[in-house]
């Protein structure tokens, strides 16, 4: 039997779902949030690398709930947990590092400003930076962001500084500042979704060092689990149901979304009807939910009249190098402070085609995460290059005596016809649902761009006088940062969602995770997803108040 109808049912409680739930609750609307994963509390966030990073505390196991993954349509699929973010209340914002950058105005007008590279599907956004800017302000305030906006060539327009002062940085930040300046570039403080001072009843960060890849038992990391969700529950209008796996969105005779079918914590099938239905379970999983919601009105999947659901999937272009220092080499290395918090954005947009690309991205500097198992597996190597025995222990001792500074690239990931997600009816997850099948075929400009940025980052590292600089790679993608699959736009023929993130084909269906993004930007997308959800909330509340 169906549950009592509510105003809005939201699938997912991460960066997209939570802002909408909070704003709707504040406006007095009855909201049910269905979250696939568990509702972890502070006591559950233990610093246990095996649990957090190597099993299914956050990510499902590939034999329970695989994603199929292949590099090119001519390749066979592999079964992996690639492109899951996190299954828990708060989603990926729970274990994030919280690098909270804004997109730049040019990200909204890339086609107009720079043109669409041949073989790409670059388009302008249906909204401008100016339309989103107030919601960036709001997201930064509601979530709690620490930072310091300093002038540099690609500083986005903003009304004021961050709500919280920057976190205390390791002395190496000053060395990076000097190195970048010497090269004629700008080392800028990285804003973090971590609170540097007590804020809205939350405790400040205690600099515990185990941050990214772990949940924060202190509530200082600004995941929606620590910020927006408690505030939403406090409105009295929002009910959050953990361990509830949405399997289908149903439609009525008129083709409007009617209810969400889900399996509850006991595996029982439930139905939650609602006036408005919102999907926010990541770009990959929202596409999967729509594609698995087949009806006579939508035989190719919900809101998929034009066949674009799942197309133009985006990740973030990834590259990385590291500088290895003997820990005793410089006095300033001795500080235990965990945050480097420096970025370089001088190559966000290139003035011409000289290096084979125009739209670049961001270099983010950080200490290597103190995850000893992960480090040791890397140090042991593989195959004929692999080592064991005394040689391995010697390498582990060298690791003990070193400090490793890394940078990673958050680069433009051009949308193409070759990168998309579908569902595979032949492979089912533990719920019996067809799984997401992901095909990735990268635009060659992405690799030219990433290589260029990695080389610039290595110039900075070399200036710091390390014992050596090691290149990790120049051609990858960060699959936890995802977008596309339901891009928004003005034209129903070329987009899935309208400018308010409402489906063109289903007037009471919204998607508010990263799916709306037509282009990836050159920064992590988390803050932008949250800001956009606050923007959508305003539009939706106005519409609901009009009784539409």
């Amino acid at each position, binding site marked *: 039997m169906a549950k009592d109808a509510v105003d809005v049912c939201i699938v997912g409680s991460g960066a997209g779902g939570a802002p909408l739930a909070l704003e709707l609750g504040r406006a007095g609307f009855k909201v049910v949030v269905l979250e696939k994963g568990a509702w972890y509390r*502070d*006591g559950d*966030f*233990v*610093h*246990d*690398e*095996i649990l957090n*990073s*190597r*099993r*299914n*505390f956050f990510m499902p*196991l*590939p*034999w329970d709930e695989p994603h199929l993954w292949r*590099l090119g349509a001519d390749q*066979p699929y*592999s*079964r*992996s*947990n*690639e492109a899951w*973010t996190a299954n828990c209340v708060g989603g990926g914002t729970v*274990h*994030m*590092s919280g*690098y909270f950058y804004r997109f730049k105005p040019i990200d909204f007008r890339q086609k107009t400003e720079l043109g669409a590279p041949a073989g790409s599907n670059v388009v302008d956004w249906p909204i401008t930076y100016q339309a989103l800017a107030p919601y960036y302000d709001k997201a930064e305030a509601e979530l709690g962001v620490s930072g310091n906006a300093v002038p540099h060539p690609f500083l986005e327009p903003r009304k004021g500084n961050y709500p919280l002062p920057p976190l205390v940085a390791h002395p190496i930040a000053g060395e990076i500042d000097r190195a970048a300046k010497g090269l004629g570039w700008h080392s800028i403080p990285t804003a973090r979704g971590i609170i540097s001072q007590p804020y809205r009843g939350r405790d400040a960060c205690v600099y*515990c060092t185990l941050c*990214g*890849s772990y949940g924060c*038992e*202190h509530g200082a990391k600004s995941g929606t689990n620590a910020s927006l969700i408690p505030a939403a529950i406090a409105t009295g209008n929002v009910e959050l149901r953990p*361990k509830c796996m949405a399997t289908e969105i149903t439609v009525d005779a008129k083709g409007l979304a009617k209810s969400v079918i889900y399996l509850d*914590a006991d595996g029982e099938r439930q139905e939650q009807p609602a006036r408005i239905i919102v999907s926010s379970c990541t770009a990959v999983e929202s596409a999967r939910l729509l594609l698995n919601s087949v009806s006579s009105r939508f035989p190719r999947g919900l809101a998929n009249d034009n066949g674009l659901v799942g197309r133009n999937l985006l990740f973030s272009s*990834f590259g*990385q190098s590291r500088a290895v220092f003997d820990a005793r080499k410089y006095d300033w290395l001795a500080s235990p402070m965990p945050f480097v918090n420096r970025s370089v954005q001088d190559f966000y947009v290139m003035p011409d085609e000289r290096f084979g690309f125009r739209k670049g991205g961001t270099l983010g500097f950080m200490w290597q995460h103190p*995850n000893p*198992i992960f*480090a040791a*597996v890397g140090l*042991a190597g*593989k195959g*004929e290059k*692999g080592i*064991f*025995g*005394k040689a391995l*222990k010697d390498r582990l001792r060298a690791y*003990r005596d070193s400090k490793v500074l*890394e940078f*990673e690239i958050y680069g433009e990931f051009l949308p193409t016809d070759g990168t998309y997600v579908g569902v595979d009816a032949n492979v089912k997850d533990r719920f019996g649902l067809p799984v997401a099948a992901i095909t990735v075929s990268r635009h060659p400009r992405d690799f030219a761009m990433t290589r260029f940025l990695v080389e610039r980052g290595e110039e900075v590292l070399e200036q710091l006088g390390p014992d050596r600089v090691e290149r*990790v*790679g120049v*051609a*990858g*993608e960060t699959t*936890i*940062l995802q977008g596309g699959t339901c891009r928004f736009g003005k034209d129903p023929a070329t987009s899935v969602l309208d400018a308010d993130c409402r489906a063109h084909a289903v007037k009471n269906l919204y998607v508010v995770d990263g799916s709306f993004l037509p282009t990836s930007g050159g920064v*992590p997308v988390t803050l932008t997803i949250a800001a956009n959800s606050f923007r959508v909330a305003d539009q939706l509340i106005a519409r609901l108040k009009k009784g539409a």
Partner: protein
Amino acid sequence: MTGTCARLRGVTDDDDFSRRVFVQRLSFFGGGVVLLGAACKKEEAKVSPPPALTTSHRSFTNEAWLTLVAAVDRLLPRDEDAGGVDAGVPEYIDRMLTTGNLPHFERNFSGGLAALDRRAERMFQKRFHEATTEQQDELMAIFKDSPPTSGEARWYEMLLVLSLEGFLGDPSYGGNKGEVGWKLVGFNLVGRNVKGDPQAPYDGSKTLHHLHCGGGKGC
């Protein structure tokens, strides 16, 4: 989000589902992860059902246990610092294979140990744990250097990954006894839970088991 959920060409394996890779390497947000994945090649002969166990291990026959202890001792031998056997790595592997969290490993791990013994018999007319350390190292290297898709290479990687988990993971799983692994790599844990009592009892394998069974009644 470092280090991260990123795939790197030429660094990360492009695992092929049809080839039934059982160790999937993934890098993960925040320093990353090798998540243990999918299925082992079943080219190894099945071992006979274990006899009644006479020692504390639960996942292995006594014969397989001796092989495992000897293999761990070659991967992480004791020198001026403690080794894998000192750290309780075999106990960690034994316990990990009973959490229900790694079904493919449970099915395939013992097969690899039996293959190692068979190779020792063939080459040195001895069981692995009876061979000299030089002979054992030679055997381990053969498994390590086998073609990447072979059962030998995959089993070796499974052993290596589980051993490093047992050496450097939370001691509550049965390995890293006395935090000897952490001492070796200079890892100073700031407490399992900054707000909680650092001495509070914690059992990672129980938590894993609850993740596997859902934590509900009868779990």
